[in-house]
């Protein structure tokens, strides 16, 4: 039976993992390769690296990182952040990344998804969608871009459906309302998108407890759950999440 996936997300800047990685047994807690290997050993189903390098010169470091991860880590990994054209995606795929995540640039020009899926296959193209609830009656969410700073006014469910139609292989769906809150996923959002598209949904944003992970799958109808800080601070281990999910009857790889 296909397992529901548990995915840790690592923020990377200038080729180094940043933001609260808090393990005692790592030689170098900033080394993406060592961290990814650690999560592989813990039972992570894949790893997402989010590149937050601001400068153009720094972009080379993430290519170098991907090539080192490919040499050492034997589970799939995705890299997101700053992919504006097919050439930048090609460089990352050539460095060994299994999946490249596109966000703002794809909203600006959706043909990027079409072109990238044609060039590298749908399995390599993850469409990241940052969603924020629109006030008023009913459940509607708007697509935000540029790290969640700019409201495009585009409907999230419609955009996810278009991304799937254009060849995206999966949707990485982040609730901007919940991100960092530890209040749990936006389940209505996750469910709405999961029902609207026929490709896998990775739920992200808001996890604080074991129950939240299981809710994302059972009530949110997500195919995979992603979290960052709860894993990095060691509050919850991947194995704990999987054991909890298994106890709730969710198929997991243990």
């Amino acid at each position, binding site marked *: *039976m*296909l*397992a*529901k*996936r548990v995915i840790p997300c690592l923020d990377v800047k200038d080729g180094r993992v940043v933001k609260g990685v808090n393990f005692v047994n790592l030689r170098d807690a900033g080394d993406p390769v060592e961290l990814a290997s650690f999560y*592989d050993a813990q039972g992570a*189903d894949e790893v997402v690296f989010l590149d937050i390098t601001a400068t153009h010169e720094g972009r080379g470091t993430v290519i170098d990182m991907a*090539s080192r991860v*490919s*040499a050492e880590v*034997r*589970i*799939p990994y995705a890299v997101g952040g700053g992919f504006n054209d097919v050439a930048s995606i090609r460089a990352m*795929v*050539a*460095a*060994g*990344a*299994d999946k490249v995540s596109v966000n703002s640039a794809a909203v600006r020009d959706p043909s990027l998804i079409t072109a990238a899926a044609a*060039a*590298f*296959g*749908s*399995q*390599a193209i993850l469409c990241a969608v940052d969603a924020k609830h629109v006030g008023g009656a009913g459940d509607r969410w708007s697509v935000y871009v540029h790290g969640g700073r700019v409201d495009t006014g585009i409907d999230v469910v419609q955009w996810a459906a278009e991304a799937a139609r254009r060849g995206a*292989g*999966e949707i990485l769906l982040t609730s901007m309302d919940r991100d960092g809150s530890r209040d749990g996923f936006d389940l209505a959002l996750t469910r709405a998108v999961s029902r609207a598209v*026929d*490709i*896998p949904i990775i739920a992200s944003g808001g996890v604080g407890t074991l129950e939240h992970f299981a809710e994302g799958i059972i009530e949110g109808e997500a*195919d*995979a759950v992603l979290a960052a800080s709860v894993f990095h601070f060691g509050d919850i281990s991947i194995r704990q999440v999987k054991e909890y999910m298994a106890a709730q009857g969710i198929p997991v*790889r243990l």
Partner: protein
Amino acid sequence: MSASIVVVDYHKGNLLSVERGLSQAGCHAVVTDEPDVIRAADGVVLPGVGSFADASAYLLSSGEMIAIRDAVRRGAPFLGICLGLQLAFDSGDEGCAPGTRAEGLGLVPGACRRLDSETPDGHHRKVPHVGWNNVDLTATGVASPLFSGIEDHGWFYFTHSYQCEPSSGADVLATTTYARTFASAVNVGGVFGTQFHPEKSSAPGLKVLENFGGIVREACRDRVFGGREQGGVGA
């Protein structure tokens, strides 16, 4: 004896993981798009990225398709991964105009088609099938050197929208169940294929690559000491 395994490059993307996986598994792997290098290889790995029709067209026009068949005829073991497994079959319809089919390597009898999305009891499953799923070994699979040391019902990583349909059940080493049950590993003679990605399947995947390396070394020894190869090298 260091046997050389070629990873066939058909210019569709990520071959690094396969090459590095083979290296980690102790194999000497070389990525190449040169038909003559493929033809002379001790073992051939055909990775899978892109669509059947695209890959088939490239393999045909580049001369790689004939070179792979030549290598297999010479006795070089072959491992197809994902689309590489599908390409080992006679034909496939992914990326083809309705009613038409693209040519495969013809190393395993059968054809390829889109995955089923409906379960026998009428439930819908998303296609592509992405993630970790169980690989259930058949009796042949349990005895196969490719799965030596691999537990039955183990987890492997998949990402695909198409599947193979072997003409003979005897060629199936393993099955996996998504909407329906499909062949997830096959073997005919020295030709092996996995629908899952061993290079992305953590420790069990590495073991499968190691096993393939062992199969290649064994075949080399047989050719050298058995003198079956024409003009074979003396021991």
